[in-house]
């Protein structure tokens, strides 16, 4: 078993209302950012998963994302897995 750092990004699915993203986008021109569009707000979760290999860690993350972190009716989850950084680096 090894530790894996997992990033789960939960995004509203296309077509689902995202007032937070829309509001942020509308605020940007006031700061002079006139070239930005397509702002979507989401959530990011960082997890440490113990697994035999990266594939197993990925499967675990996908399952827990579907069952808890995201609501599949309105959200998609994107899972990224990388070997865990050392304990020192994390502290």
């Amino acid at each position, binding site marked *: 078993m090894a530790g894996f750092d997992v990033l789960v990004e939960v995004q509203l699915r296309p077509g*689902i*209302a995202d*007032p937070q993203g829309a*509001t942020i986008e509308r605020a940007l021109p006031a700061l002079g950012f006139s070239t930005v569009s397509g702002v979507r707000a989401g959530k990011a979760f960082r997890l440490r998963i113990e697994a035999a290999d990266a594939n197993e860690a990925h499967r675990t993350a996908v399952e827990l994302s579907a069952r*808890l972190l995201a*609501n599949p*009716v*309105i959200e998609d989850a994107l899972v990224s897995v990388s070997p865990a950084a050392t304990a020192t680096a994390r502290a």
Partner: protein
Amino acid sequence: MTCRTAVVVFPGTNCEHDVCEALERVGAGPELVWHAAGSLAGYDAVVLPGGFAHGDYLRPGAIARFSPVMAAVAELAAAGAPVIGICNGFQVLTEAHLLPGALQKNKGLTFLCQMTELEVANEHSALTAGLAAGQRLRIPINHFEGNYTAPAAQLAELEAERRVVLRYVANPNGAAHDIAGICNKEGNVVGLMPHPERASSELLGSADGLLLLGALLAFAKGPARPAPVAPEAAAAAR
């Protein structure tokens, strides 16, 4: 038969006393039940009131779904008893998969707190039995995530099975098919975004909510349905 209605209180629920007050008015015998309760044996109906269960962390209803009481709510639902989710309670019922679809953020970016006019679309559910199809009701809403959505096939199924219980006359939040409330196939599990308890007296601007809650009482006592109480409770009652 006296009716006993469990009004579930999650950490962050905030409409439970209003719901109890309104249920008292129709004689539905409300009793507050903490979310850690493992059983709802002996109750004839259950209401999940509005608020912010578990702080609405992650998503409204996402954590409440795992509260111990939810297994008992599912049992009561399967037994045919009225299970009503109001506002946040509706969100909990969808997250618990007792009702399909999801409540997304309101179209138009704003939290909505206003009176709405509703039309009864199904006169057989636990909240609308005895009302007339097309009947208009005035009941307020108070939500940010009240914009009902579901996959197109699911919406078509809801319509085909006449499971849309209430529709907005003037859609305030972008909800698909103007949906304000839906029910399960059996009609005993109902979720709605409007707050009937806030329309429980003319002093509040409308008493139409009592029609819905009165229907709950009638449905709970209805003779055409098997007793929703657990077997051991039924035995104790005899």
